[in-house]
């Protein structure tokens, strides 16, 4: 026996069935909710609960009191001497021993970089824009700059010790000063900054001597080695103090040429190899000749070359520059293009074949590739492409990177206009990608 079922309207159907419907929420929802409520209550001022304002009200006075107590205690313990405990700088010792020794220039010119002393490892790729290279990602290899610094400091300290002990009678210094030629070897020398020169005095071993290098540095070594960091012409003076009290002086000239600075940047900053042509922008100073080594066996001596690599690889790019006086400097970036292997890009327009749907498979070399909307890519392992009309209607979908959109939907050629594409997937190294954009479908 068939029961007579009443027919109702759509509205009644939904109202009756759903208005008082009950659904059991997941257990986790309750606990998540209560936790959130507790958190929110803490952050608001609610008189009935311990909240952040109460907390602040306790902490702030507590901290203030603690601070005051500490400050008063600290005052009682402080010693009256105000000498800092850091190492005594050369300026201080100079005052102490009444010898006027100016601070020698130690810093290299034009290099605001953090230099890594021993390791050859460099962060590849990013050579940032602008002349001020402040990142630690680039290693300069200046010619033995670092080792020398230690030697120079040592000389200073030695020198001060000598004078402090008062071995020399200052009166005697002034009385018998005899200018003597050729006490110094070499008599004159020329080089590129930083210029290391080994001086040799022709005096007897029993004499004590004092070298004045003319750039602010001194030495009491009979055969000192000195590095001239700054370009210029220096008169190096040697004073020999004999046992009989007489003094000999001699002078030599040192000519220091400025060093060029090798500096370059690549454009684009994050290129894709081998697709992109790399432009090397030259920011070197004082350079009249440039030699580039691109790391793939090719070289160039253009000022600002462009280069395309035949395949992706770890390339060390080196630039060596020379000044008009023959001084040189070099800059090398190891593995300059790492991380630029994988990409996926879509065109922004295409003209479908008006004769009918082609199924979307294309061979990259043939003409028909331009009639199918597809990406250029490298290293894609997972792929999903979706095409939507401008209004959001799904038109096409493909999970195969070799299958693009032929411009048809349900057998019909789609209207010319703008469509939206969305792609997601993974590169071979596991890195995921999501991109979207629009493409214009043009009429042939």
């Amino acid at each position, binding site marked *: 026996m068939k029961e007579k079922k009443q027919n109702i309207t759509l509205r009644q159907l939904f109202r009756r069935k759903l208005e008082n419907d*009950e*659904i059991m929420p997941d257990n986790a929802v309750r606990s998540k909710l209560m936790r959130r409520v507790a958190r929110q209550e803490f952050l608001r001022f609610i008189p009935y609960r311990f909240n952040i304002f109460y907390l602040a009200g306790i902490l702030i006075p507590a901290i203030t009191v603690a601070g005051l107590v500490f400050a008063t205690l600290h005052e009682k313990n402080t010693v009256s001497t105000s000498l800092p405990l850091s190492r005594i700088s050369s300026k201080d010792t100079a005052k102490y021993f009444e010898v006027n020794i100016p601070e020698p220039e130690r810093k290299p010119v034009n290099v605001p970089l953090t230099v890594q002393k021993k390791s050859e490892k460099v962060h590849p790729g990013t050579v940032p824009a602008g002349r001020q290279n402040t990142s630690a990602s680039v290693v300069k290899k200046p010619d033995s700059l670092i080792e020398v610094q230690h030697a120079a400091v040592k000389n200073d300290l030695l020198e001060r010790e000598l004078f402090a002990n008062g071995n020399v009678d200052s009166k005697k210094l002034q009385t018998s000063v005899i200018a003597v030629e050729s006490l110094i070897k070499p008599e004159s020398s020329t080089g590129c900054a930083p210029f290391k020169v080994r001086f040799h005095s022709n005096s007897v071993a029993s004499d004590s001597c004092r070298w004045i290098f003319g750039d602010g540095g001194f030495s009491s070594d009979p055969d000192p080695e000195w590095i001239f960091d700054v370009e210029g012409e220096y008169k190096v003076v040697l004073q020999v103090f004999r046992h009989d009290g007489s003094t000999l002086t001699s002078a030599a000239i040192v000519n220091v040429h400025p060093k060029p600075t090798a500096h370059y940047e690549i454009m684009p900053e994050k290129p894709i190899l081998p697709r992109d042509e790399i432009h090397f922008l030259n920011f070197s100073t004082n350079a009249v000749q440039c030699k580039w080594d691109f790391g793939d066996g090719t070289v160039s001596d253009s000022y600002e070359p462009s280069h395309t690599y035949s395949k992706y690889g770890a390339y060390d790019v080196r630039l060596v520059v020379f000044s008009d006086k023959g001084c040189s400097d070099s800059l090398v970036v190891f593995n300059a293009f790492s991380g630029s292997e994988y990409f996926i890009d879509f065109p922004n327009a295409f003209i479908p074949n008006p004769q009918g749907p082609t199924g979307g498979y294309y061979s990259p070399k043939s003409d028909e590739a331009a009639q199918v909307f597809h990406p250029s890519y490298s290293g894609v392992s997972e792929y999903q492409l979706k095409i939507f009309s401008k209004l959001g209607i799904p038109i096409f979908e493909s999970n195969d990177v070799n299958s693009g959109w032929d411009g048809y939907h349900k057998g019909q050629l789609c209207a010319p206009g703008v469509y939206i594409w969305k792609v997601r997937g993974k590169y071979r190294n596991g890195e995921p990608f999501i991109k979207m954009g629009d493409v214009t479908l043009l009429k042939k």
Partner: protein
Amino acid sequence: MMSDQQIIKLCAKHNRKAQQELYDRYSRLLLGVCMRYASDKSEAEDILQESFIKIFFNIQDFSGSGSFIGWLRRVAVNTAITHYHKNLKYRYQVEIEEYETQETGVVSFEEDFYTSDELYIVLNDLPPGYRMVFNLYAVEGYKHKEIAEMLNIDTNTSKSQYSRAKAVMRDKLEKLGKLKISYKEENLS
């Protein structure tokens, strides 16, 4: 057992036990409400959570006049609308005219032919804009003028969206119905 009045008073003071009792008592009903507005259960649970946060922190605004359950429902519906507006920019807007609908002839329904689960599925399948209007008009019983205000649309838009929504619903329900019948027949034979 606490009365609704007691629960309300204690929740206003953020009494933890009262809050938990309120949740236990009304979460199932409110999840049913949220379920209609969301695309799936987890989204519905998100809206449910948001609703309860609002309820706990605004319960002192419930003046006591009118039904408490009605007040709770309104909070849930408003939360669902806020949620919808927030997520608008992540959805593609489907123009009403573009949506392909077939005007089918199913105008009346047998009440017990569909389960509530099936109705949720059909609802969740609707584009969100349609779903909002349909719920508010057909189930909550708001007028188009009110709906227009709540959703920030024209009154006429509300009306036309509702009629389109109905058409889509009928179409889907008919398809679902045919499926159910053929399935039944298969089992009988």
